[in-house]
């Protein structure tokens, strides 16, 4: 019997500081046992449990794409005991990863459709996974127009700055980057304003072939939802990724449930239509 609570051993292969306040770092992990990488086959939208012996485990969305082979990446915000310890670790250190866990964006439905990705803050990590996946040469033709609306508090808080520039330069994806405040940066050439405001201005019109994927802090989701309603997006065309306190990650420990659904197993991806039938305990 496979033990779903036992992490795969991994080595930290690279660490990249993402934001100017150093609160977000991207960790690139390599599996110590190559066969474990195969077992960790994932889809964009899933998460894993980062496991540090002696400190505990934290559920984090997978930032790398299934099309990127040989490693797995996670972007981690320094918040508590485990994440602080992780931020103090070095390249070459060994730890564990459990997963992949949870469901994923419904790629079978999304193929052949226009996709608008709306993300804010560090929730953008699983959206990076989706963007890299969709832009891969094997997959790009499976999707129609791709729009990305991504906001952070300030320019220095934007994740994946090099990749943002590369995506900006491509003509098969429309990037709409925004910040709450540009801090009077004279070189800031993108939008200034909250994500819901930019969504109202830049999101493509709603139709049966357009799906919105929304991931961000609760306040952003709260104010983006009425904008999408105003733009006419059907609730089964709005796909959200939730975050709840999770521990086991496999629907057993009982803490992340919303109604009869477990965010860790039945989610984290739900359509707004599904969420409307669930208590607002998230």
């Amino acid at each position, binding site marked *: *019997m496979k033990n779903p*609570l036992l992490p795969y*051993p991994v080595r930290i292969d690279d660490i990249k500081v993402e934001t100017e306040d150093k609160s977000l770092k991207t960790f690139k992990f390599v599996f110590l046992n190559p066969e474990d990488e195969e077992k960790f086959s994932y889809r964009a939208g899933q998460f894993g449990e980062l496991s540090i012996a002696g400190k505990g485990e934290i559920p984090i969305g997978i930032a790398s794409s299934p099309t990127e082979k040989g490693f797995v990446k996670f972007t981690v915000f320094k918040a508590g005991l485990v*994440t602080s310890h992780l931020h103090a670790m070095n390249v070459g250190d060994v730890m564990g990863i459990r997963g992949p866990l949870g469901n994923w964006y419904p790629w079978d439905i999304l193929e052949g459709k226009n996709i608008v990705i709306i993300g804010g803050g560090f929730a953008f990590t699983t959206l990076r996974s989706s963007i890299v996946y969709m832009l891969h040469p094997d997959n790009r033709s499976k999707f129609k127009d791709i729009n990305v609306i991504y906001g952070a508090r300030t320019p220095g808080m934007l994740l994946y700055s090099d990749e943002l520039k590369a995506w900006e330069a491509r003509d098969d994806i429309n990037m709409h980057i925004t910040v709450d405040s540009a801090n009077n940066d004279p070189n800031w050439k993108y939008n200034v304003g909250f994500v819901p405001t930019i969504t109202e201005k830049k999101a493509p019109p709603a139709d049966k072939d357009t799906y919105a994927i929304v991931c961000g802090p609760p306040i952003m989701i709260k104010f983006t939802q009425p904008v999408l309603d105003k733009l006419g997006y059907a609730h089964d065309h709005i796909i959200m990724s939730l975050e709840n306190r999770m521990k086991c990650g496999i629907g057993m420990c*009982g*803490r992340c449930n919303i109604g009869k659904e477990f965010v860790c*197993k039945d989610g984290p991806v739900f359509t707004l239509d599904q969420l409307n039938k*669930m208590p607002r305990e998230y």
Partner: protein
Amino acid sequence: MKVVKIDKENWAEGIEKIKESYKVFGPSKSKEFHLFKELEKGEAPDLNFLNTRLSPKSMFFPQSEGILCYCLDPNKKDECNIVKEIQKDYSPKAIIGIRPCDAKAFTLVRPNFDNEEYQDPYWIKAYDSITFIGLACSNTDDSKKGMPCSSCFCTSAGCGPFNEEGLDALIVNTDDGYIIKALTNKGEEFLNKAELSANSNADELTANINTLKKQAEEKINSFVETDKLKDKILLDLHSANFWDDECFACINCGTCTYVCPTCWCFDIQDENYGDSGVRFKQWDSCMYPLFTLHGSGHNPRSTKVQRFRQRFMHKLKYYVDKYDNGIQCVGCGRCIRLCPVNIDIRKICNIMNSYEPAA
């Protein structure tokens, strides 16, 4: 399957025989109440009890259980920070004297730990290593201890004083002996290993059991209504206005969750001892505010009423909707008897079952 009747004098001898094949656990009086414990040499289970204060769920779902271990010594390069499974004892065990409600409870819990997607090896292996020998709630002349408690409502909670689900054998305590009915192969094996000198006429004994069962069921006079729960709209019940009133006295102590045989919530924590450590799985409770507190500080169930509602909605609506397997309660009544502020699941269940949202 075998049905035997044995003399009570032979009982202790059979128990000793059983100890050669199993680790034997049974109810034992500790100060003022009964608990399940491993029986020592020469010790027989004490079957004169109403019900144990705690169910025997901790035998396969311990309150705190080391599951994984690790080394933190940087000098041991090959194993430092690698988490490994702890080898455990899954040798055969027998629980003698478990009440039918508790045995049924664990069958309600099983889909949480053993489903198509994931299997918890700790729960499953420990549960499967046990032979469950039940004790029917029958009344006898020499002891009134088989009487149902005033808070027992098993017959309307999908269970009953002679319920056989989850049991490998059922013991019926009669005036002149124990009738033991094997229900599974494991139960039959148990009887064979006990080598009890039996006096059996299966048809007569089965008729006898049925009579006692009817008598016992008639003694249960406390009921809950559950027939309409499945049809209720989840969000109607969730937003109902009775929760504030019903939770007023609750102090979120968590007693109800710890004594409940069908509560399964747990936490996972690491505990270090110098250069090594153990990852533990331990009981937790939806009554506690830290249970759902996010790293960001946001807490989706930050208030008492939200946590109170969660417990009853989980047992009486979410479980019903998810598994279509009845309510997540067997009517053992422990949460009623042991609640320090007299909150009664029967009342909440009946309110939920009859709730109609305002037009």
